[in-house]
């Protein structure tokens, strides 16, 4: 039997990752200053803090509705490219698990896959473009493979988490195709993509939360 997560779990995880993002201000801003314009942390932090502020309301919703509300909040609070990409992704995840009060491991994987597909479509970006997709895409692929091969929940989530971390690390040697880093002569080679790093934080915290609090 797979684990099952509810909106309460998801919002608990959101609170954990929001704290991690909040605390890593200087690190994220430094990464962004190297390739972007230095505002990634400000915007993503504003988005996650708005989710923290809406936690009580979000916890009481069916998870499909919570995803939708998260999407609307992120779209309007983060702004910029990240806002619409995260917002669109959560709206896509909401549709992918329509009608669900809670979701199991397979459905979580489906939701994450819907998110990465929406980001790729909307942002006209692919893996290898040095974006947050480089953390999420390999995590989703790993998740699908682990589910297909019947790997146990704990091991699956450990693999997913590692794939996201490795994916973010791999952006160091990539050339940016999208966003501000793409205007640099060296296309940001040698620097981690801050969007991929904050995405890997999310996958990491989500997996850790489920391993530590949901799986018995």
């Amino acid at each position, binding site marked *: 039997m797979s684990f099952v997560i509810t909106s309460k779990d998801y919002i608990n995880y959101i609170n954990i990752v929001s704290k991690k993002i909040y605390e890593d201000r200087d690190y994220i*801003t430094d990464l*962004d*200053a190297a390739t972007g*314009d*230095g*505002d990634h942390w*400000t*915007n993503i932090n*504003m988005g996650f803090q708005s989710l923290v502020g809406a936690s009580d309301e979000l916890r009481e919703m069916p998870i499909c509705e919570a995803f939708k509300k998260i999407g609307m909040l992120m*779209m*309007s*609070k*983060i*702004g*910029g*490219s*990240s*806002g*619409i*990409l995260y*917002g*669109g992704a959560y709206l896509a995840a909401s549709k992918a698990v329509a009608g669900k009060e809670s979701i199991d491991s397979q459905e979580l994987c489906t939701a994450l896959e819907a998110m990465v597909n929406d980001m790729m479509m*909307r*942002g006209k970006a692919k893996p290898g473009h040095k974006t947050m997709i480089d953390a999420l895409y390999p995590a989703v692929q790993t998740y699908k493979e682990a589910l297909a091969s019947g790997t146990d929940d704990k091991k699956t989530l450990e693999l997913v988490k590692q794939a996201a971390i490795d994916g973010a690390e791999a952006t160091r040697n990539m050339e940016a*195709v*999208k*966003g*501000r880093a*793409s*205007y*640099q*002569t060296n296309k940001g080679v040698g620097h981690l993509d801050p969007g991929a790093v904050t995405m890997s934080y999310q996958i990491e915290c989500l997996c850790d939360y489920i391993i530590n609090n949901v799986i018995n």
Partner: protein
Amino acid sequence: MKKIINNPDNVVSEMLQGLAKANPSVVYSGVGIEVISRKEKKQNKVGVISGGGSGHEPAHAGYVGYGMLDAAVAGNVFTSPSPDRILEGIKQADSGKGVLMIIKNYSGDVMNFQMAGELAGSEGIKTDYVIVRDDVAVPDSTYSTGRRGIAGTIFVHKIAGAAAEQGKSLEEVKALAQKTIDNVRSMGMAMTPCILPAVGRPGFELGEDEVEIGMGIHGEPGVNREKISQAKELAGKLVGRILDDYEFTGNEVAVMINGLGGTPLMELYIFYNEVEKILTEKGIKIYRTFVGNYMTSLEMAGCSVTLLKLDRELKDLLDFRCDAPAFRV
């Protein structure tokens, strides 16, 4: 950081409130929406809106007025506004003949404005858009995001705004905006970095004696970093790159010398004095010139040159009366 602010989180709303108080011809939408629109709404006219991240003042709120924009939508500093804000701008500008959105070519702006257009469509408001990509520092490419939109955007506001004021249809206003985009080229350079209020320190360093040719209006790296030279050499570099990209020789042009926020008008006029000599020497006839801070980058020092190739039709629209807080013809 030394800035005249209260709280970095409130700079956009407080700035727009001040702008509206100083200019009674426009109204402010309210905190969290961040739209400036005309107080007197004209009926049965194509609406023209623009917007983007803040930090480029007077763009875009300063261009709301007769003969120019109907509404401007502001995002956070250097960050695209979200679709809900843009939708509010569209509604403010709509009087039944549709709304043209003038978008600068940054992926965030393009995605957010496109989604706002879809939302407007689902509410029965017709919209269309054009994307400004005048910065010749960046290679024109379909593979990457391609050329950025910079100061040339002001000419697109002017031409589209005049066309809409004259009662033209959405299709006609769009075609004229696109013609302006096709005919306009810009090239800039920076001398100092800028500081985002929420970040508090410069995003990059530039040596005391260095300039960066081709730097973008968000501090995006340019094409070359070099020792600062005299005004005539700098003018030659910027204009040269524009003329390498597009054939202006033998044509009439409108010229814009745009300050990035931290460069005195004295230097902008000295710079224009050199640009004028180069253009005249190349057989390019200057029809009209604008010198000032039109599309800034916070306190960044530096400037850009924009050339717009004109024909009879564009001249008439450029000369059409315009009365916006930051642009009067």
